[in-house]
């Protein structure tokens, strides 16, 4: 497909799609759809789309809520703390163990990530308030799960509406049990998406881990010149582990992982590192900026999807350190190159020229583009559930060609875009998966790695390549049409 025809097709698709809406909704959605050109200086954001605004009611957005951003994303993976879903029963149940935040520990004894702790609000808690119940929940947790290193209270919608004071309960109880208790006001109605939940959660890390006394001893870890922290890697399918290995191989010491497989101690150790390495910018830029301002720790964004971006990032990270690290960095790159060459030699011929449309969350709508392009695949559409302007600005740098950009795309729009642009692969979430598979389109979930992964780092890229090949070249897609329906 030539560049002009692709761009024209993309623009036509947007125009066509907007026709289905009533006037007000069309006007709103128009601002969230655009066509991005690589490195186009005239575009303020990629495709000049507007973002981080209220969702149009009634259109089947894929967005989640602030609770999802805090409990589901930022706090939930911290493994040695217990995260109470505070309010009615549903939120904790629907979000239980859905994100594949891998960790090592004895679940239910010293770690708790895949469990669901809920204060299970009943009508009387709504009417008379739930603070008393929360206090009791904390007592019972302390009795039955004595090895917990702290508790977070993840507020569901009613908490902020009925005037409960979870801050006061947390304060009293923290003193009583001498442990970190973090009240998080991440009620689902706050903000327009998961995004505000990330921010609120970041702020509580600042207030309750950095600015307060934590109950874990950090004195045994003596800081070194090579200390770094991985920020914004949720260890989905083990992503942070396949990233960590590369950093360690180049002579760095990874003191903390935020927050996949994280512990309270690692978080408390982070203000002493030399450099913060930020993978998911959207969900953890706040705490990185805070550490820069408060502790003078610089932070850099990196991208460990696909070899091109991984190499660039490794060198960018090494440049912050002395020559010994830079030398080892080159050795690491050289060590993995033959394996990567072999992976590309094997899979590129099978995937070259295949087009992809993405719709994901925090960083992937731009970060994974390079990995597809390394395999010769062409990303022709992408968008974010909950991005801000700064994400779309960054996206400009990572697209390779005219790319349709859809912010907070809804079911109707994504389906229409796919029908019009006919990609060979759609890569998005669970809610969309079967819509496209019904149409006979190869599909990969890019939140959960479709129960595979890791996809980060060199070892992760090999899995990514294998999985994309699996999806695109599986014989099952050819069965959709019955033999009696075949043409000719």
């Amino acid at each position, binding site marked *: 497909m030539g560049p002009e025809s692709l761009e024209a097709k993309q623009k036509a698709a947007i125009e066509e799609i907007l026709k*289905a809406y*009533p006037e007000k*909704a069309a006007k709103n959605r128009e601002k969230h759809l655009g066509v991005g050109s690589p490195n186009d200086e005239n575009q303020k954001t990629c495709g000049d789309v507007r973002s981080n605004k209220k969702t149009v*009611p*009634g259109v*089947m*957005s*894929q*967005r989640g*809520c602030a609770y*999802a951003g805090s409990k589901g994303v930022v706090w939930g993976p911290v493994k*040695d703390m217990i995260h*109470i879903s505070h*309010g009615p*029963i*549903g*939120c904790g*149940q*629907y*979000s239980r163990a*859905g994100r594949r935040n891998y960790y090592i*520990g004895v*679940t*239910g004894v*010293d770690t708790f990530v895949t469990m*669901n*702790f809920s*204060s*299970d609000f009943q009508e009387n808690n709504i009417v008379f308030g739930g603070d008393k119940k929360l206090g009791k929940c904390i007592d019972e*947790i302390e009795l*039955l799960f004595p090895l917990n*290193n702290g508790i977070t209270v993840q507020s569901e919608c*009613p908490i902020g*509406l009925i005037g409960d004071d979870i801050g006061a309960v947390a304060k009293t109880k923290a003193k009583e049990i001498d442990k970190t208790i973090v009240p998080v006001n991440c009620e689902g*109605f706050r*903000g*327009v998406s998961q995004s505000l939940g990330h921010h609120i959660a970041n702020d509580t890390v600042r207030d309750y881990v950095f600015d307060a006394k934590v109950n874990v001893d950090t004195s045994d*870890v003596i800081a070194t010149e090579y200390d770094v922290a991985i920020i914004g890697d949720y260890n989905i*399918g*083990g992503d942070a582990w396949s990233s*960590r290995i590369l950093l*360690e191989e180049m002579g760095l010491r990874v003191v903390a992982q935020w927050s996949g497989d994280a*512990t309270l*101690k*690692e978080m408390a*150790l982070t203000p002493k590192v030399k450099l913060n390495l930020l993978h998911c910018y959207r969900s953890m830029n706040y705490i990185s900026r805070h550490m820069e301002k408060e502790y003078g720790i610089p932070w850099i964004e990196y991208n460990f999807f696909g070899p091109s971006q991984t190499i660039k990032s490794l060198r960018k990270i090494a440049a912050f350190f002395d020559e010994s690290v830079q030398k080892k960095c080159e050795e690491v790159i050289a*060590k993995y190159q033959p*394996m990567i060459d072999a992976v590309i030699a*094997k899979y590129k011929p099978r995937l070259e020229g295949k087009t992809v449309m993405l719709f994901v969350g925090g960083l992937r709508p731009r970060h994974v583009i390079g990995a597809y392009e390394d395999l010769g695949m062409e990303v022709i559409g992408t968008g974010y559930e909950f991005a801000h302007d700064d994400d779309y600005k960054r996206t400009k740098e990572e697209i390779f060609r005219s790319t349709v950009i859809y912010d907070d795309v*809804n079911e*109707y729009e994504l389906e229409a875009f796919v029908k019009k642009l006919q990609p060979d692969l759609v890569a998005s979430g669970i809610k969309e*998966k079967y819509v496209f*598979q*019904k149409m*006979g389109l190869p599909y990969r979930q890019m939140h959960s790695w479709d129960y595979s*992964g890791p996809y980060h780092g*060199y070892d992760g890229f*090999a*899995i990514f390549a294998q999985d994309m090949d699996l999806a695109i070249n599986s014989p099952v897609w050819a*069965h959709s049409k019955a033999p009696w329906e075949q043409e000719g």
Partner: protein
Amino acid sequence: MQEVEKIVNGKDLFKRPEYQDVLANKKQFESSMLAINPARVAEVQAWTESWDYREKNLAREAITVNPAKACQPLGAVMVALGFEGTMPYVHGSHGCVAYFRSYFTRHFKEPTPCVSDSMTEDAAVFGGLVNMKEGLKNCAAVYKPKMIAVSTTCMAEVIGDDLMAFIIAAKEEDGGQYLPEEYPIPFAHTPSFVGSHITGYDNMMHGIMSQLTEGQKGETKKRINIIPGFETYIGSLRSVKTIVEAFGTDYIMLGDHSDQWDMPAGQYEMFQGGTKLDDARDCINSSATISLQKYATSKTMKMVEKRWKHAGGFSNPVGLKGTDEFVMKLSELTGTEVPQKLKVERGRLVDAMQDSYPYMHGKKFAIWGDPDFLIGAVSFLLEMGAEPTHVLCHNAPKGWEEEMRAMLDTSPAKDSLNVWAEKDLWHMRSLLYTEPVDFMIGNSYGKELMRDTGTPLIYIGFPIFDRHHLHRYSISGYDGALNLLTWITNKVLDQLDEDTKGIATTDYFFDLIR
């Protein structure tokens, strides 16, 4: 490092020495006890298996750990998707809808359409009227559903939004462009802090049936309404229809999502199948209504029996006895003798039960799930001579515990059989450690119990996220009971092989023929 000819994902990758080093090295920065003092972890772990822990655990009053229930609007969404061309519409925050859609989609491996009107902070202050007006209009314009079924999240319930007034206002403001006066928009208040997902099912079913039938009362027709309840087995809906059809009677299944959550590949249509809206409007004129799930339809059936004066009542066609009762009820209501086809089917089921009974007889089971599911499944276990040692229902409504107790009391083993109403799966963990069983029957949440206690898990229930296609089968009717029998018996046999496969130690019992 990966080898290109044998690329492995996380399952095997992290077993490699270089990754084992990474994980070991990470421990020096960790505060979890396993990194600091593994012996202490072992000590506490052992304590969690004790009677002392069990007593403390069962005494919990506030914190719920690993629940086996969900919240009201989930059930409301299921009801809506059982009606022709109907969009479930949840008035409140959109995060909830993302969760409902993911939850059902992970279970059914099917798309789950549902919209929200995305209420945010300003709506929390001023109410969600503006969201409702716009949301209904946009939903109607974009997805063109034949009906929109409105339920609520807890946010809308806490602030006290008035659905009926809002819907009327939305239609008025629209002036008929997208939302004509006669456009069906039934609604139900479904507060998450009351009951569970089955309560939401009941409320939405009540909402649709009562609102669609307004002014439709006419002459009674010889016809039976069937309300399936919160049924997650697609095959069950089909089995029930087959049984009713065998009697040659006219019937309406109210809330039939069997096509919606079982779409053939080839193309995507957002809505498939479902109860015809004309049928739903006319269901008030049927002569009888049978609900297959008592506890999931109590409010709805109260209306049907008291106000509509329908014959019928409850009948739970899971297991042999349950199916027999259902068949006899149909026979009575239709005045038709039990059809030969069903007699043969019953005979085949009983034959199969008599073939397999030695493997289930006397085996101890722990089982959990929704109250109606448990009534049927436990009945079947008893019919096979099995011992349901622990029967746990987290969302047990009033009366359920007594009914279950009475059932268990019919067993010769009754003194060792326990009912656990309003308990969660962390309670179940203690029960399994202190009073162990041979097998568990439950949903995917049993997986951690299987890992921790070593009790084999037979996947029957909802949700099932990590085994494929079970929901396509039936657990209702004689054919459904045969599925239950097959799954349970073969798991017992699998376990028997597992227990006896030791070469030169136990494999004398590793029989070829069983």
